[in-house]
């Protein structure tokens, strides 16, 4: 399997795998990692933070994968736009995907094409390490849909 035109793709899955379906992003990253697709780097973390700006500045396409509480089923894939402005949170250390793009652009002079994958989850209330059955199904659908897109460098994404 070869990625068209040697495009560098970074997948960042984020969320808390200890809070049931909030771990969908990390689970997606794990699944993509296991596919061992050439040209695709995979990372996972609890949240997006400033140092991710350095990583995304070195790739052509970045896919941010997270869980969604009330988005469409089974998942939604949308382009990420840079926000016109970014404000500092009260105490959070995490950034939004759009803020990261902006930071990457300001600090490193480049921001890649970016997509947000929002996989619909259902159970966020409890501590627990397993995805709910429905969330697991949505994860499978996302992996099946995204795998060919990785191969074409998201050229067929519309």
């Amino acid at each position, binding site marked *: 399997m070869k990625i068209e035109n040697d495009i560098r793709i970074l997948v960042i899955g984020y*969320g*808390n*795998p*200890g*809070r049931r*379906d*909030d771990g*969908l992003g*990390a689970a997606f990253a794990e699944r993509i990692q296991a596919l061992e697709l050439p040209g695709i780097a995979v*990372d*996972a*973390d*609890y*949240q997006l*933070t*400033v*140092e991710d*700006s*350095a990583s995304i500045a070195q790739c052509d396409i970045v896919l941010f994968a*997270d*869980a*969604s*509480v*009330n*988005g469409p089923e089974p998942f939604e894939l949308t382009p990420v736009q840079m926000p016109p*402005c*970014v*404000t*500092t*949170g*009260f*105490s*959070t*250390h*995490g*950034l939004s995907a759009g*803020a990261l793009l*902006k*930071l990457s652009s*300001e*600090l*490193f002079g480049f921001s890649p094409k970016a997509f*947000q994958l*929002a996989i619909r*989850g259902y159970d*966020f209330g*409890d*501590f*627990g390490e397993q995805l709910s059955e429905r969330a697991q199904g949505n994860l499978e659908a996302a992996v099946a849909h995204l795998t060919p897109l990785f191969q074409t460098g998201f050229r067929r994404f519309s």
Partner: protein
Amino acid sequence: MSVLTRKITIDPITRVEGHGKVTILLDGQGRVSQARLHIVEFRGFERFVQGRPYWEIPVLVQRLCGICPVSHHLAAAKAMDGIVGVDKLTPTAEKIRRLMHYAQIFQSHALHFFYLASPDLLFGFDAEPTVRNVIGVAIKHPEMAVQGVTMRKFGQEIIKATAGKKIHGTGAVPGGVNKSLSKEERDLFLRDIDQMIAGCRSALRIAKNYTLDHLAELSEFGAFDSIHLSLVREDGAMDLYHGNLRAIGSGGQIIFDQVNYQTYFDLLSEEVKPWSYMKFPFISKLGSEAGWYRVGPLARINACDFIDTPEAEAARKEFKALTHGKPNHLTMAYHWARMIELLHAGERIKALLLDPDLQGDDLMAVGERREESVGMIEAPRGTLIHHYRVDRHDQVTMANLIVSTTHNNTPMNRAVTDVAKKFLSGTTITEGLLNRIEVAIRAYDPCLSCATHALGQMPLLVELRDGEGRLIDRKISE
């Protein structure tokens, strides 16, 4: 006399680590009587771990916090050392854990300073929020911003090398560690360490100069006398990985010292208040009114006798000179103290990287099984306590966790009240007041305990109560 109380609620104050709310209580004359920081702390974790085998706990507890999972990992591992009867780790195991911990301090302090604090310090409290943020710092001070990003990444890479993974690391296990550091990994970090320490010096300079340049203003901003509590080494040195408990009074007098933390429950109690989910710890013998205390960088710099790395020690002496050797009580001095610790962490990481014990292969110690143990560590935000009981089937039967932000609950409320009293004019919440409340809370770098953060969800609990505490309205926004 009956006093009518009106309420002004500021919301949303809600972000990834959890969510909070500030309520300002006015008296009948429209003056601030009290301001309350409400934090929804998730304590269900203590029940979640019950029934789990003890060796899983150091990995499981990392789910508690997205920003300092290593602190929970190590505090739990220290507790489980006690469960397996190990009081002394092998030199390699202890140094690997220390490297992991100081990297955690390094990345957390760097992130807080460059991402959350520096916009306030560089642009001022009244600057437009659209400018007073990390992008503003990137535009006006690009070198500093790149430095901050690089420092955070450096710390994270050391964590990855010592814990095995960036997320859900497994490096520390009951009785030791499961890997040492290769020479190749060491050399990679040694290549960059001097640049990292240079970054620490720059950040320290900014925090120090800011405090000194604004001393009059900061002396009237959330400043109040308090007790300071932290772990210190047996010789009184700052030690962020291990030590005994020390508490000093507002004038620097010792309240207790060199207390083995296995008996923390004899010293500390927690008070419950009806308006907050988070408890209010205090020193038992002093009572809740007089016994509350601060933890974290300011408390640690105030409480220790010295720092055993040269540049941080010189910085500590400068810090203490400002108050003629007495404790510093400025809330905003947390930033300066935090940057002294950042420099100390940089120096300590370098010393550890140069220690050949990190490449040793004696990773585990063994001992005689026990049923109860406490692990304690100085996490980036302050003293972190993990206390467990484990039955003969190796299952956890009791867990009690007191996290750093909980210790600082009363001080944060005091800081918010002080700021509200000084900056609320009439019954209108100005942008200036809002900014200052956030600045005061942010100085403590609170971690509001990991809630789910999934896309589209920003839960916020809003409660409205009258002067007699009756619930008038209750809403959860999503």
